[in-house]
């Protein structure tokens, strides 16, 4: 088991956002967490990547407890988080953003190859490499955000709502890219409000509602589940 979250309880001051959730992601899988706004999806990812500290519970990566590690340590170990709302550095160029994604890396040659790799994945980024990231369109920024996260050569990629705020056509493109990554062997934990698309491409899914895992299982099962259909797939 590559990534294991056990009994995680996270609080914002006195409000409990996560109430003892557990989930696993195995190597090569595409696992998705679906749920409505405020369910705790982003909180889960932020806790895995070390920005938030849980009050109870553990996060284990490759068998090691990473719960109390600093965020930059966790990135070094191989978990990369592409945050909600893209959060690219608008004042930096596309290239500089990508370089920041690889901040902790020392392996120059592989980094250069990865730079080529992400620019092949996202040709539009290659075209705009010297432009300020703030001048990119929403879809391009999302691609930059994913590319940036990939630059750290992650063993697990955490994707937080990559389709948020994008036009339907772009949403399709993004999900195609995610599938491509999956095909290339990247392990992905995808958080999405757009349950339809997420369940379409994932292997397994967790349904998160107000800090609790309501359902989990292979995607085929969940897609047939009546509650899931009604709540997230439009009946």
């Amino acid at each position: 088991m590559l990534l294991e979250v056990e009994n995680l309880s996270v609080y914002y001051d006195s409000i409990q956002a996560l109430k003892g959730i557990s989930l696993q992601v195995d190597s090569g899988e595409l696992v998705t967490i679906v749920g409505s706004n405020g369910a705790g999806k982003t909180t889960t990812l932020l806790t895995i990547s070390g920005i938030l500290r849980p009050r109870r519970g553990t996060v284990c990566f490759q068998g090691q407890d990473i719960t109390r590690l600093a965020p930059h340590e966790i990135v070094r170990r191989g978990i990369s988080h592409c945050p909600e709302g893209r959060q690219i550095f608008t004042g930096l160029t596309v290239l500089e953003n990508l370089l920041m994604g690889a901040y902790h890396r020392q392996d120059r040659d592989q980094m250069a190859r990865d730079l080529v790799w992400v620019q092949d994945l996202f040709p539009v980024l290659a075209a705009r490499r010297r432009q300020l990231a703030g001048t990119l369109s929403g879809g391009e920024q999302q691609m930059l955000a994913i590319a940036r996260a990939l630059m750290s050569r992650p063993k697990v990629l955490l994707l937080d709502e990559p389709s948020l705020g994008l036009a339907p056509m772009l949403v399709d493109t993004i999900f195609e890219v995610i599938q491509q990554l999956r095909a290339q062997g990247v392990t992905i934990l995808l958080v999405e409000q757009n349950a339809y698309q997420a369940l379409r491409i994932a292997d397994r899914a967790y349904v998160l509602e107000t800090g609790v895992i309501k359902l989990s299982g292979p995607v085929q099962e969940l897609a047939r589940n009546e509650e899931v259909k009604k709540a997230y797939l439009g009946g």
Partner: protein
Amino acid sequence: MFSLPYVAQQVVNGLTLGSIYALVAIGLTIVYGILRLINFAHGDLLMVGAYLALALLLNTALPLGAAVLLPMIVVGGVGVLVERLAYRPLRGAPEVAMLITSLAVSSVIQNGTIMTLSAQPRAFRLPQGLIAQHQVGVVSFSTLDAVSVALAVGLMALLTLFVTRTRVGIAMRACAENLRAARLMGININQVIAYAFAIGSALAAAAGFMWAGRFGSIEPFMGFLPGLKAFVAAVIGGIGSIPGAMLGGYLLGFAEIFFVGFLPPELSGYRDAFVFALLLLVLLVRPRGLLATGVEREG
């Protein structure tokens, strides 16, 4: 009064004063951009730099360059130490707490100087070579003026290279824009913040040398006003933006010199009041400053 030589002289003065403000403003803006902290102790680092330079000039036979460079290194270290001891424990604390602590640090530095030395002003006499005057066409300037401006421009160029060509430098800009995203990238923000304080403090020390040379004397409270004015400069240029700090520094330097130079002499004593009136104006009319970045702050 508006003769060409006179105007040229004011321009030279504006350049020198602007260089000083720019150097100090850069340190303030870098730290504010990343931590949202107005480091009230920053101006006092200028004072420490001046005192160290004087100590070196008086007590050693070191060349002038060393009297500038060594204080920069030492004060850079002091800045890192201050951050580690006083500001890091307050990461994430309410703004008011950081503000009060930076005031306390300023008090410690000022009174530390009073305690170890004395509150009496000391003369800052420069080696003869620096005071020499030169004449180029209508412009008259001293070697100190030329050295100050050249040093400032050189340091700013180095800094620009640093923040565009090095990993840590680019990370510094990234942290100023979005600290959380930077952490998610695996950027060690403690390291970046240490660099920010080291660089900003070193620049302030260089400015201390220039200031002391320009005004001829130093005293423990000398950093308070330049520090405050440098903040005004940073705000004018756009807080959080390094080019903004440079631009704001020179704009403020020129504004101040022109205020004194071209208005009736009875008003010249009001120049500090003018600077703050300017601050208020900028904060009310264009709070993001001239070269606004994506940096968020209250206002």
